[in-house]
């Protein structure tokens, strides 16, 4: 009994790294980041729909560049680089005002974005769940 405790202490760092490695595979990390993007984008859409009729309001979004940068980072399989990426809300420069009050929010498009973002969030959380369940299967030897 005491032997295992000593072994644990001696190899604590190694164990720790092993556990970390389980949860920090590049794909898992990317899914986590995308989940962050979804939640942040929901916040931006909430702001856009709230300001549907505020004169001169400019539409906000998480820039689509983040997704391409993330894709490149996944390609390198560098977990540190992935971990360091933080999505940010910015003004959507591609949106143009279709009304005279300078507001760039399009009601219908915004509702589509809202729903699409919800589906994306569902997919991402599903991917993470799948990875976790596979890990559990590997550990316990039976499907949970």
């Amino acid at each position: 009994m005491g032997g295992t405790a000593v072994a644990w202490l001696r190899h604590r760092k190694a164990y720790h790294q092993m556990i970390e490695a389980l949860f920090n595979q590049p794909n898992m990390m990317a899914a986590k980041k995308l989940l962050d993007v979804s939640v942040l984008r929901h916040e931006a859409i909430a702001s856009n729909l709230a300001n549907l009729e505020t004169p001169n309001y400019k539409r906000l979004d998480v820039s689509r560049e983040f997704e391409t940068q993330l894709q490149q980072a996944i390609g390198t399989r560098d977990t540190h680089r992935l971990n360091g990426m933080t999505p940010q809300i910015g003004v959507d420069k591609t949106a143009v005002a279709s009304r005279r009050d300078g507001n760039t929010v399009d009601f219908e498009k915004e509702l589509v974005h809202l729903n699409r973002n919800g589906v994306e969030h569902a997919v991402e959380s599903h991917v993470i769940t799948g990875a976790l369940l596979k890990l559990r299967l590997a550990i316990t030897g039976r499907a949970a």
Partner: protein
Amino acid sequence: MINALSGVDYAASAMSAERMRMDVVGQNIANANVTDGVDGGPYRRQQVVFESFLQDARQIQAGGASPTGVRVSRIDQDTRAPRMIYDPTHPKANKTTGLVAMPNVNMHEEMVDMITSSRAFEANLMVVKTARTLAMQTLGIGKR
């Protein structure tokens, strides 16, 4: 940390602003035939002006734009001229011309305003529902 129910604050602020607008529309419709307003002349149409506002200082994000809530900044009086109708029997009629100054409320405009307001309210309600769905999906991570 990201708020568990992201975007709900913005939606809530917008919903209360829309409710205020609905109040003002109701007031306009109720007073559509009032020839003796509080300031002596016929009732003048009121309209709300929306503005964005930051809900707290933490929302100011470095480098990026921040999502904002909405509130009613002021209630303006419509400066359009009163509607003149010919009705010599009216107690408020001009003795020589027989014209009565009626409020500058246009019932069709008010109806359109009411529907717009109601739709905007529904859109914000949708944001709250979606935020809830996202939160439930996140809580369900790891469960099959």
